[in-house]
């Protein structure tokens, strides 16, 4: 093998090593960034913010739950307010029969 060829091979080998090294360094950087982000995500500040936004969301659900409950109870009040004399008389007649049977 000529010296020129041997040098060409050595250079290629060096380049291959550099590519791998660079990739490894880049990979480590990516992992390190992720670890930094992990710390931020798990920080008390972030969790507090997340908690607050969830509380806000659940409060809206709770408000709709309460308004649904109110609607349901409105129906019950509607009934209580709309009992007619005729209906009461009907029950009264039924109970009088029970008294005088």
């Amino acid at each position, binding site marked *: 093998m000529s010296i020129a*060829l041997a040098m*060409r*091979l050595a250079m*290629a080998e060096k*380049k*291959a090593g550099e*590519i*791998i090294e*660079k*990739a490894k360094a*880049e*990979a*480590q950087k*990516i*992992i390190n960034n*992720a*670890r930094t*982000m*992990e710390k931020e*995500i*798990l920080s008390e500040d*972030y*969790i507090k913010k*997340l*908690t607050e936004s*969830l*509380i806000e969301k*659940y*409060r809206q659900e*709770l408000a709709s*739950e*309460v308004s649904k*409950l*109110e609607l*349901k*109870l409105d*129906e*019950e*009040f*509607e*009934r*209580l*307010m*709309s*009992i007619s*004399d005729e*209906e*009461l*008389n*009907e*029950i*009264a*007649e*039924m*109970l*009088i*029969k*029970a*008294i*005088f049977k």
Partner: protein
Amino acid sequence: MSDELELFIRDILGKVEEEAREILEKAHKEADGIIKAAEEKARAEAERRAREVIDMERRRILDTEIRRIKGEKAVLKDKILNNLQGKILKLIEEKIQERTKDVDYYGFLYKLVREAVLELGENEIVVSANTRDLEFIKSRNDDIRRKIREEIGIDVNLELGEKINVIGGIIVRNKSGDKVFNAVLDTLVKRVISRNIKRIVRRLGLISQNRFVRLLYTMFSKISDNIEIEASNGKKVLLHPCKNIYSLTTESGRIDLICEADNIETAIYATIGKATSRKIEEFINVVSSKLAGKEYQKIFIAFSGSDEEVKELLHEHDIALLTRKELFNIDRQVGSKIFE
């Protein structure tokens, strides 16, 4: 040779670059995993904290709200039952005065005296009543004593006691006054209301909305043959035996009962209150989105009836309206004995 080497080098470098890409890809995956896991962990922790806060708020708000509403409902219920009690007494008074056929008041007074004798287990009794009833007992004293002797074999000495200010009925004491039999009408009416309270609250619909729907569920599940009824708005409805009954709640509204029969489904909206435009529209929205493409009929049950204005809306959407009267009718036909 040089060309071959160049090709060889290019091939090797290609493979190395591929390996580098894989290294980076793996790193990205690992990084994504780290971030995702952190996000999940943070979310779970935030969720736990938020739920804790909201559960406390929910308990506090709902407890307060429910307690307040229950209190108001109890007051209204009491008013209605007191009103009922007053009505019964007034009706009885009218019936006694008119001597109507359905109330044999004097026969009833005799039965009370006989019951008092049996209850007290005494031969000598003192009967207190209002002026009218004392007069009756005085004028029929011998007859009453004879009848009691014949019917229960007790020789009773019946003495007239004090006049009391009541609509009717009697208070009977033994001679020493330590035993009392109270059968004044006020007390009897209270007693009969208390004995029949379950029946009264159902017939009058003094129940919660949830209970109302549960009772309807029971009634509809007992339909064993087709029943034809005329709805309150004149529409004819054929009720089929239900193979399956379920309910639906969506963001826009609810269907309280869906009765699945052989070829048709019956969608039912049930309210213990009145039929209103808002409720009907809510019903129509849910039915048209959830039962689209199916064969179905629509029934709106409003225990308290409806306002005149909604009848047109019901007609427009081909909805049958069932009120208290029709429910009692179905109950009778089905034999579910829920509203009887």
